[in-house]
Structures are given as C-alpha cells and as structure tokens.
C-alpha cells in the first residue's frame, strides 16, 4: 500500500530534480542579469540576488549598440523566413503533388543539402559575396542563410504537404477549379499550421546563426545579435557578466514568446522534420 503511494512521489521528485538541473543555467542567466556588480563577485556566490537591479538592462539598451544588433537580427530573420517559406511552399507543392522528370532527384538533393556542413559552403560563399560586391551587407547574410533554411523549410513543408489528403484537391479539380485555384483555396488553408511551424523554425534558425555572420559581416552597423553580442564579450577588458547575461536574456525574448504562445507548432514541426522513424 505505501509503495503504491510512494511510487508517484519518487517519480515526481526524480523527474523534477532533473528538470530543474537542466534549467539551472537559464535560471542562473536571469539571476546574474539582475544582480548588482558588487554582488556578482562574492565568494561563494549568492544563489538568489540580495538586491534586484535592472541597471544592466538599462545600460545595455542605452550605452551599447545592442538595439542596433537586435534590429539587424529582426530584419535578417524576418526576410530569410519570408523568402524561404514563400519559395518552399511552392516548391513543396510541386514536389508532392506533381509528376515530372527529376522530381525524385530534386527531393534527394534537398535532403542531402539539409545535412551538408556549413563550413564547406562558407569559403565559396565568401568569395561569391566579395565578387558580387555585397559582402558586409544584411542582404549577403539573407542569401547565406538561405543555404540552410531553404532545404530545411522544403523538407518540413514537404512532410506537412504529404499529410493533406489528395481527395480534397481532386474534389476541387472535379468542381472545375484550376490547379492554382485549388492550391489557393484548398491546399493553403490546410497547410497553414505547417507553414506557421516552418516559419517559426526558420526564424529561430536564422536568429541563432553564428558562422555566416562571423565570416560575411565585420562591421558593427550590420552585425546581427549573435556576432554583435560576442564582440561585447571579446572587446571588454574585464568581462561584464551581468551585462552579457542581460543581453542573453534579451536575445532570447522572441524565443520565450514563441514558447509561451506557439509551442505546439514547434513540437509538430519535429514530427515532420525527418525524425518520423
């Protein structure tokens, strides 16, 4: 009897201990960002802040180029997402619902590039951007982000598209709709959750990307958050950890919003993204 009562309690305690250990770095990030500088270097550290301050956030927004980095990242991730999802939706529709030569090859190529390491492409892309005279611009980064975002989006959208029954489209065609009409009126509404999921994934991928930004952009005016915040770490004489943790929290804000309101779209993307085994 007692063992029956005890089992769920032990299970909960074990699980939650692990979950809290996993979340500890995130908790510590927030705690550090709220501690005054003097409290930061106390040995041993205070596990909860004795005084809570928002001075680091204030300094981050007023005294550092953080807001410019943030704006660059918003432009970069949004443009990449719109571009890639628009191309990907048409491409996925074609790959799933049409029969033409080279279709299978194309699908395999998409999967192959989905797995390709960025460092293979980075050297030629760097040369290409220099040659085109667009290195050090946000546009060059949008193009570069397409290299990983497009295969990803295509693959995800393809799986979502496969989940829409053929009958729906066929019924519309029998009723006299054209292929594109059926696409707009039947497929697109059905695909919408998939499109949202893909868009979120693409946005997060682009928001978090570091290597291309490191190689293709070296001026502070076009740097996105990833490289911009890292230069704040490297260029400082004594590293201001509270400031960096405040930057980390601010950088994760879009993610926190997605997590709070749209998490089901993220998990549904997982089922579609090649791990359906």
């Amino acid at each position, binding site marked *: 009897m007692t063992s029956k009562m005890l089992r769920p309690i032990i299970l909960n305690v074990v*699980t939650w201990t692990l979950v809290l250990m996993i979340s500890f*770095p*995130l908790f510590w990030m927030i705690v550090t960002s709220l501690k005054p500088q003097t409290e930061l270097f106390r040995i041993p550290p205070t596990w909860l802040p004795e005084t809570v301050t928002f001075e680091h956030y204030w300094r981050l927004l007023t005294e550092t180029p953080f807001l410019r980095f943030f704006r660059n990242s918003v432009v970069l991730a949004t443009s990449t997402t719109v571009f890639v999802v628009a*191309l990907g939706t048409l491409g996925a529709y074609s790959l799933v619902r049409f029969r033409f030569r080279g279709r299978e090859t194309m699908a395999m190529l998409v999967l192959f590039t989905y797995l390709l*390491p960025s460092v293979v492409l980075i050297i030629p892309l760097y040369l290409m951007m220099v040659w085109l005279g667009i290195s050090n611009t946000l546009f060059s980064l949008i193009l570069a982000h397409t290299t990983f975002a497009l295969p990803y989006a*295509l693959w995800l959208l393809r799986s979502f598209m496969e989940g829409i029954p053929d009958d729906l489209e066929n019924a519309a065609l029998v009723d006299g709709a054209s292929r594109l009409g059926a696409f707009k009126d039947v497929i697109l509404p059905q695909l919408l959750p998939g499109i949202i999921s893909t868009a979120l994934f693409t946005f997060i991928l682009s928001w978090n990307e570091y290597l291309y930004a490191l190689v293709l952009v070296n001026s502070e005016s076009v740097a996105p*958050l990833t490289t911009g915040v890292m230069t704040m770490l490297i260029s400082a004489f004594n590293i201001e950890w509270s400031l960096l943790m405040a930057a*980390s929290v601010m950088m994760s804000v879009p993610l926190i919003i997605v997590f709070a309101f749209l998490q089901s779209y993220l998990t549904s993307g997982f089922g579609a993204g090649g791990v359906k085994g």
Partner: protein
Amino acid sequence: MTTIATDPPRNGPSPLERSYARLGVLLIAPTIVVFSAVIVYPLLAAIYLSVFSIYTPTLEGEFVGADNYVKMLTGGVFWSSLWTTLIWTVGTLSLQIIFGVGLALLLHQNIWFRSLARSLVLFPYFLSTVVAVLVWRWLFNDLYGALNHGMMQAGIIDMPLDWLGSMPNAMIGVILVGAWKYFPFVVIAVLARLQTIPENLYEAARIDGAGPVARFIDVTLPQLKSVLTVIILLRAIWDFKEFDLIFLLTGGGPVTSTQTLSLLVYQEAFGLNRMGQAAAYSVGMMLVMLVFMILYIRRTGKES
C-alpha cells in the same frame, strides 16, 4: 464502347498531364534557381578551389593540383582533427541518447505540471548557441563560476577546476554543453514515438508477469528501435559538423585539443589565410560525412 474504340492508343501522358507537369516544373523553378546559386554552385566551387593555393586577404592564387590533398593525407593535422571530432561526436551523442531517452521515459509518465516540465526541458534546444555558450562560460568561470562553487559546496571537489583552459576538462566541458544543448531533440522525438505505442502491449506483458525493466526491454525498446536509428544518424551528422558551440566555448583550444574538423577548416581559411588548403579539408570532411549521409538518405527514402 464507341469512345473506347475511337480513343487513340495512349502513348505517354495526356495533354492535361503534360500541362500539369509544366506547371509543376514552373512552381519549383525559383527554388531550383536559388538552390543552384547558393548551394550547388558553392559546393562545386569548393571542390574546384581545393586544387588551388589561395591567399585569403588578396584572394590571389595558383593551381597546385593535388598538393592540398597530399598535404591533408600526409600531414598530421587533418587526422588529429578527425580524431578530435570523433571523440566529441561519440561523447556528446552518447550522453544525448542516454539522457534523452531517460527523460522522455520520465516525462511520458503522469507527473505534476507535465507540460511545464516539457517546456523547460525543450528550451535549451531552441536557445541560441551564443546565449548557451555565454551562460556556460559564466558557469564554468574558474573564480566566480557557479559550477565550481556548487560542486565545492556539495563536496565533490576541493579546489576550483579550470574547465575550459586545460585538458581533458575542456573536452569534457564541450561534450557536456553539447549534450545539454542537443539532448532535447532526442526527448521530443522519443516522446512522440512513445505516445504511439499501443497500451495493450504493456497490458499483455503485465499479464505475462513482466516487471517494469522487462517491459522496457521487451516492449518499449523494440518499438523505439527505428526512431532511435534515425535520431542517432541525424544527430551524428549534426554533431560531427558542429561549429558554433565548440568555436565559441574553447576556440579549439587549449592549443588544438578541441579543434574539430569544422574549426580546422575555419582556422585554415580565415586564421592562417590558406583558402585552398581549407577547401581541401572541407572536401575531406564531407567525404567522411558522406557515409552517414547516404545511410540516412537511404533510410528516409525507404520509408517514403
């Protein structure tokens, strides 16, 4: 009857099918153009560049034939980086699988605030690598880091450890952060599969008198086998090519102890300014990965 008789013998597709095929090609054309420009062309260019010797700042160079490849195969750098990459991949992947499957099993149970627990576990995976690295470098800090102090307070160590500046700690540190960042992928994929295992399989095992461990081995594991194969292949590929996390945590150091192949390519191209040699390394790296990629592609092709 008459319609059948008058129908011409059908050779190939009908006009409607042909026009559909044209539309299909038209719809995918923009994708193909972008694909060729930003992926296929650079991929071929990387192979082309690998037979030149190019000085990065001026981008001038000359044809050197297979020299870069000879250097790659005979010099020790490529092989030691490959070895480092394998240690990192095997180390972090094993931890990801163990913790991923373990937590998926726990989170599959009926625990308090299950969806909150799932969100918290999921979060590191979507977090920017830059953020993850900043937080972990602060945790690893030898003087003020929470990790050292936590471990000292718990009595695990007496003296603060130098986490990222010495070996083997640096490799352990990188593997740990990699596991923390990427194990949620395994959790989500396994959790999704666990939900589809029919409950009556467990019922039957229970009637046969199987305990929890036996049920796991005889019912759960066989059901997870196929999804685990896919996860391991996919994560092996992604861990093998990981750049951001290792580069930002250690920069490949101390010296070159954590310099994986991705870091080697970057260092050669933009640190040592030998772009041709770097291209050769990247082609070599891709050839090593190709084995896993083909395995994964064949597997996925079989399913669809």
